């Protein structure tokens, strides 16, 4: 079965760690970094589970700092019987 895999990219050093992207992700792909700090001094959003992304762009739509870009690639998924 053909499906879509999304690839979110986060410009980590521009992120202010507000967490809005994490709150709207339907697949729990994103998370706020646990400890690591960016050049601004914020704990940025990170892509915690990239393989779960469906490329819906909800995170990018709600990001106030436009730090997220999203790609989509077609993938073949095995049909679960």
């Amino acid at each position, binding site marked *: 079965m053909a499906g879509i895999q*999304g*690839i979110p990219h986060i410009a980590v050093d*521009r992120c*202010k*760690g*507000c*967490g*809005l992207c994490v*709150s*709207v992700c339907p697949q729990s792909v994103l998370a706020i970094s646990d400890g690591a700090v960016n050049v601004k001094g*914020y704990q940025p959003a990170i892509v915690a589970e990239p393989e779960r992304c469906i*490329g819906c*762009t*909800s995170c*990018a*739509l*709600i*990001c*106030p*700092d*436009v730090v*997220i*870009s*999203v*790609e*989509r*690639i077609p993938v073949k998924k095995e049909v679960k019987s």
Partner: protein
Amino acid sequence: MSVVFSRTKGLTEAETHYCPGCTHGIAHRLVGEALEELDLLGNTIGCSAVGCSILSYNYINVDMIECLHGRAPAVATGIKRVRPDSIVFTYQGDGDLASIGTAEIVHAAHRGENITVVFVNNAIYGMTGGQMAPTTLAGQKVTTAPAGRNPVINGMPLKVSEMLAQIPGAAYVERVSLHSPKEIRKAKRAIKKGLTCQVEKRGFSLIEVLSTCPTGWGLSPVDAVAWLEANMVPYYPLGVLKAPEGGKNV
């Protein structure tokens, strides 16, 4: 592989000064994307206001003028009359447009000026430290009303869009919100519609954008979005208040 979301050319590369989670950044992006998609970037002049959005000229990738407090619609009027072929928009907050700038916005709408106004309503004076704005909700706690806004003393919050929608010169008035990806998509459609209204010379257009102020409200960014949806949307109902068809054809 296809890129389905990337930074619009309508924004500069500058990082914004806004607090984490402030939805001003989303509104900036929607304006930039709308201008890019309508191919208006090279022919647009923006008027930024006073308030948190004062530095929007650094972020939106068009020529912009910084206007006196509340006077952006008057400046936009002048620019539009001198350069009628340019697209002219103002980007104003509620502390600017709904209080000190009430006269300018009402009369710009009344004259049916062919400009587009993006009105960001976050129910508080953000930049100056969270004072009460005309749009602050009844009971909402702010630094100048620590017990909450009392309608007996302060009146009820001003519904700017409803007020302007009944003016004959206003062609298009819509209220949108930025509390979810779905509403953000709708907000972008509204901003594009407002700019298209201007391109088609239909007259005055205003898009009110309900926005958050996590710092001023004393909430986390995620809680602020939920507060907006639960408290502001019921008082400031979303939707088209005046359709372009009813406007003045210039």
